[in-house]
């Protein structure tokens, strides 16, 4: 069926009578376009006409032909049928309105470029600027928020906030922080933080107090900032240098004689869950396995990024 016929609606008719060719000629003469004419027997043919064409045919065709409508279909016919069901129409309109209204709000904030803890902290901060799940998109000043965040956070080199459908995509690039400044004017020693066996010592400022192969305890002085010798005055520096040591860790545990271990069978079952905002509902039937582990494979938007519906 042609697209135009589908849009305007069409009626499949059954014509009975003798000399059906004459019927076709009458229809053509009356300006009724007849489609898909199939003759099923000597006295019966099936064809498709427009609803208006059928009315015209009923007026012009002689009584010796019986024209009956088998089925009417198409978009216009469907819409007419739908128009009769007012409750359904109202429901549909409400759903569409709700969908449109839902698309005016932010439903998810996705932060990339930071670890989970930092991302959560940033989300909390974004909330102060009005970017949070449920926020109205029209009230947002993205550029201002980006600028303010950059000013406040020295550790961030760049922030890009983009609203894509109902999702706020926040892209963050952390800055490379300069090394910590060391106060050279205060004399100090370099001491061991942990028990270790010294591998190498390179004293840049001060006097190396340990030797290679020596075992030191936590708190022992490795490079001393106090340098003195016979015939020389005592000098005090902020000790600097590089000490490499081997550190050991000890651990102990007890294990039972027999132990139950879970081994993966390799069998999997995919369970789809539809998520609307904070609510979720399973799509598939329950899990067939008695004991199982779950893992989230992916989260896909059902209607693009337009609505907060995921599967």
């Amino acid at each position, binding site marked *: 069926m042609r697209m135009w016929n589908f849009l305007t609606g069409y009626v499949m008719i059954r014509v009975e009578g003798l*000399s*059906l*060719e*004459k019927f*076709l*000629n009458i*229809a*053509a*003469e009356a*300006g009724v*376009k*007849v*489609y*898909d*004419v*199939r*003759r099923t027997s000597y006295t019966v*043919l099936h*064809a498709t006409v427009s609803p208006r064409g059928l009315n015209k045919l009923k007026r012009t065709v002689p009584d010796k032909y019986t024209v009956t409508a088998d089925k009417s279909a198409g978009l216009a016919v469907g819409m007419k049928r739908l128009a009769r069901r007012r409750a359904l129409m109202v429901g549909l309109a409400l759903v569409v309105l709700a969908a449109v209204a839902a698309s005016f709000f932010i439903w998810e904030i996705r932060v990339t470029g930071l670890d989970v803890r930092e991302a959560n902290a940033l989300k909390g901060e974004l909330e102060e600027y009005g970017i949070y799940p449920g926020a109205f998109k029209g009230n947002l000043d993205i550029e201002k928020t980006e600028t303010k965040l950059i000013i406040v956070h020295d550790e961030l080199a760049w922030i890009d906030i983009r609203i894509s459908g109902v999702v706020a995509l926040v892209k963050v690039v952390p800055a490379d922080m300069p090394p910590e400044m060391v106060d050279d004017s205060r004399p100090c020693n370099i001491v061991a933080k942990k028990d270790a066996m010294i591998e190498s010592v390179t004293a840049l400022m001060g006097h190396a107090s340990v030797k290679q192969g020596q075992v030191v305890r936590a708190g022992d002085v490795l490079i001393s900032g106090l340098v003195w010798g016979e015939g020389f005055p005592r000098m005090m520096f902020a000790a600097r240098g590089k000490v490499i040591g081997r550190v050991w860790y000890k651990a102990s545990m007890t294990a039972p004689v027999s132990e139950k271990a879970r081994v993966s069978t390799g069998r999997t079952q995919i369970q789809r869950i539809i998520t609307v905002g904070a609510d979720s509902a399973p799509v598939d039937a329950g899990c067939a396995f008695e004991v199982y582990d779950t893992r989230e494979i992916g989260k896909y938007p059902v209607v693009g990024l337009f609505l907060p519906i995921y599967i």
Partner: protein
Amino acid sequence: MKKARKLTQNIVKRLEMAPEAAGCLRVTLLDNTHAFIENHQGIVEYTTRRVCIRARQINVTVSGEGLILERLGREDVVIRGDIAQVQYEISGEGAVAP
């Protein structure tokens, strides 16, 4: 009548107009699946194996298997199916539709 038709044909020829303008029958075949027939004057016979179409001077008969009239209008008809043969038959002025 014959003279008038000849005169029309001459005028069309001299003015280099499309022959359809003079009411000539135009048959276009697409593979052996579709036949477009323009400037017809009615259906003489239609079965799934044979479609006979009347024009001004000739009848055109399309034979084959599973023939259906995909579209039938006042001036044109589209036949679809396994077309095996297209035959012309000089009908003269006297040919009448059933």
